């Protein structure tokens, strides 16, 4: 461990940029223009520093970058850790949040922006960044809360009756989740005597040396899994998803589905594939226990999400339910990989073991889902802005009148389905490959579960095609009904819309200005191009995901990177002096 790799400001930069922007927007509330400029500058800065961190950690030579807050060495103080997994997730956040922010600036009602949209948005980003970066399990809880607290208010932002109701159930569920998480964390602290994830992994790996009772941590890990599944909206913890996603403003929903959901996924990967994997329980490692659970919940998510989405007559609900199904595709490779984590992979597969490959596949799919679903939610948001509804009955024939919108939806939908050369193709390919490799090489229950997962994924994929096609047919093809006619009289594209006077009698929704639409169209186009671009340059994404997968499954590397056995700067690493009070009661 070279001393220079410790405490690099770039590690804490995403967190600080988001935090500073949130506070500055709060201070700049006297003038909306100033606030917007600050907010956008902060958004650009956030994307830039996440890219820098990604470049440094994933593409560069550094592997694990610890950052000791307040200069307290691990495991005593709170440690931030940037490894390939964290940096990749942050880069994902950077890619999605900036377009969503630009969209929000023009789309969210001015009155709403005057209240506190921008500070909340950036506090949410700070929470997300902190959750991705922290190497301390209680600190993870704190960042979860920062993120959730902002998202509660953002969900209720438009404060209509439906929104408050959705937000109330969202808040109550997450409050329960937080209490459960707190219980699990308290138990983990009592049994292992530490909150630092790296220290916990080390102690779980050598329970005798540190006087740790391993068995209770399994149940506590199960509690944590339930909490993370709730955050990620995996069946059977999905029931808050449709209402909350519908209630939130479109750009917020894009971030909720694209990034906030992935925090749950990240936490599952980090804690189970890096930390709990170190412990040896009665029937194998924690992964052996968690694998079947993840596969079954993934199967349930894919089938349920797909079926529920097919039956919806409203675009936003369809998309919300679809993200329940899509999370199944992210969890499935994790579950299958957990069944046989040490299975060696053949050449040409990104990852040396099945565990690393599974995580890599999940990450590529997460990236696809984040960008594609973000794009689709923003399309739905544009429809709401222009026409005032996303109900299928009142939409139709948009393709001819709004080609940019239609093109963006088409690309997003195709990427969700997994059509080459979009990035979604590679996501699906890797997910299926994980299943095939595990099914072919494994034996017994593991292989059967892998094949079950594959079958469900196939069903899920077909259902994805079905609901995307249905939405496309209903919204973009066919004869435009009166609601559309009133607003879009003739062929419209971003640059050509003259005025909205025509919509004056069409209702209150014709007030969208030309500039708003132009910006929204540009954001959609940029995201659509991102999908194509990363699809063509999928090597980068897959390589980064492979590196992240290796980092996530390399427990020893993580532990040594955070605090080496011989200590950093002369401070000795802790030597098992925990009083062992965990066993005392």
């Amino acid at each position, binding site marked *: 461990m070279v001393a220079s790799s410790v*405490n690099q*400001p770039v590690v*804490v930069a995403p967190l*600080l940029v988001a*935090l*500073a922007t*949130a*506070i*500055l927007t*709060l*201070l700049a*509330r006297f003038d909306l223009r100033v606030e917007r400029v600050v907010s956008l500058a902060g958004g650009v800065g956030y994307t830039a520093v996440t890219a820098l961190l990604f470049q440094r950690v994933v593409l560069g030579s550094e592997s694990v970058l610890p*950052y*000791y*807050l*307040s*200069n307290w060495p691990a495991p005593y103080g709170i440690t931030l850790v940037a490894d390939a997994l964290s940096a990749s997730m942050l880069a994902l956040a950077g890619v999605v949040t900036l377009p969503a922010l630009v969209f929000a600036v023009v789309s969210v009602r001015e*009155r*709403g922006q005057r*209240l*506190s949209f921008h500070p909340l948005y950036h506090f949410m980003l700070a929470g997300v960044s902190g959750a991705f970066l922290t190497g301390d399990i209680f600190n993870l809880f704190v960042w979860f809360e920062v993120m959730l607290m902002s998202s509660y*208010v953002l969900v*209720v*932002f438009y*404060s209509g009756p439906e929104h408050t109701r959705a937000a109330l159930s969202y808040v109550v569920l997450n409050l329960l989740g937080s209490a459960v998480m707190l219980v699990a964390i308290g138990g983990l602290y009592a049994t292992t005597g530490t909150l630092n994830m790296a220290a916990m992994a080390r102690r779980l790996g050598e329970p005798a040396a540190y006087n740790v009772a391993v068995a209770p941590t399994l149940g506590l890990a199960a509690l944590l899994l339930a909490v993370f599944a709730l955050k990620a909206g995996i069946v059977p913890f999905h029931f808050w998803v449709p209402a909350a996603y519908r209630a939130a403003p479109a750009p917020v929903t894009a971030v909720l589905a694209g990034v906030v959901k992935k925090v749950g996924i990240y936490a599952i990967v980090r804690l189970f594939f890096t930390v709990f994997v170190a412990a040896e329980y009665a029937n194998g490692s924690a992964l052996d226990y968690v694998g079947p659970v993840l596969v079954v919940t993934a199967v349930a998510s894919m089938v349920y999400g797909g079926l529920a989405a097919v039956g919806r007559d409203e675009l936003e609900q369809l998309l919300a339910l679809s993200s329940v199904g899509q999370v199944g595709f992210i969890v499935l490779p994790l579950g299958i990989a957990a069944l046989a984590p040490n299975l060696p992979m053949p050449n040409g597969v990104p990852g040396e073991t099945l565990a690393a490959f599974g995580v890599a596949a999940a990450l590529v799919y997460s990236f696809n889902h984040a960008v594609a679903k973000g794009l689709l939610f923003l399309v739905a948001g544009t429809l709401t802005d222009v026409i005032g509804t996303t109900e299928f009955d009142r939409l139709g024939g948009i393709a001819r009148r709004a080609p940019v919108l239609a093109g963006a939806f088409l690309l997003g939908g195709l990427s969700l389905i997994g059509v080459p050369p979009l990035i979604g193709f590679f996501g699906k390919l890797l997910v299926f490959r994980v299943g095939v490799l595990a099914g072919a090489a494994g034996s017994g229950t593991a292989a059967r579960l892998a094949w079950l997962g594959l079958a469900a994924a196939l069903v899920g994929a077909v259902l994805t095609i079905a609901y995307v096609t249905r939405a496309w047919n209903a919204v973009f093809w066919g004869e435009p009904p009166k609601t559309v006619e009133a607003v879009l009289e003739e062929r419209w594209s971003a640059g050509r819309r003259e005025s909205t006077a025509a919509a004056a009698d069409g209702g209150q929704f014709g007030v969208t200005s030309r500039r708003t639409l132009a910006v929204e169209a540009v954001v959609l186009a940029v995201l659509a191009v991102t999908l194509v671009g990363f699809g063509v340059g999928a090597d980068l994404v897959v390589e980064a995901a492979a590196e992240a997968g290796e980092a996530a499954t390399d427990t020893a590397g993580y532990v040594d990177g955070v605090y080496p056995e011989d200590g950093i700067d002369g401070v000795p690493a802790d030597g098992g002096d925990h009083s062992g009070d965990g066993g005392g009661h």
Partner: protein
Amino acid sequence: MSDETESNRPAATAGPTDETEQTVNTSTGRVGPAFDHRTTVIARTVVRVVVPVVVVTALALLFQGHNRPGGGFIGAVLTATAAVLVYVIFGLEYLQSHLLGIDSSPNEPHAPTGWYRWLFAGGLALAAGSGMFPLLAGLPFLTQGVAFVHGLPIYGELEVASALAFDLGVYGTVVGGLLTVVAEVGEE
């Protein structure tokens, strides 16, 4: 914090604020706000005595917080409790215009909450800024330092801890946030 409550507030705000007009209080003969009839002399007297004690305790907790039990949050909560006590017994109008000296003129009905928000934002900025300051010196985020000033009268030695800046920031944030809530919910 609770900004969203502003958007849908009913136009007419009924409640105790309507009763606190400037009138001659018949029982004491003093000119002052007409207190809510439900509060008794005992309650009013007790609050008069208790509130200063609470505020002093809150400040003590704030200033010793960096190395003794206490801190910005608990100090702020106590301060807000003092404010709530005054609000419950004497009404919101009295709390804001008499004690805090903020006029909620008809033109700017949200002037007090505006002040609280500045307190909230300023506190956050102070707390985060005190954390970021060490970065300029090449130290990690949130690094704290302490200095001792010697030769002062009475005190002799005074401890100046950078953690106090953070605590002050937290104090401002929490007081600002809680008073916003009290003002917003109280008006409804």
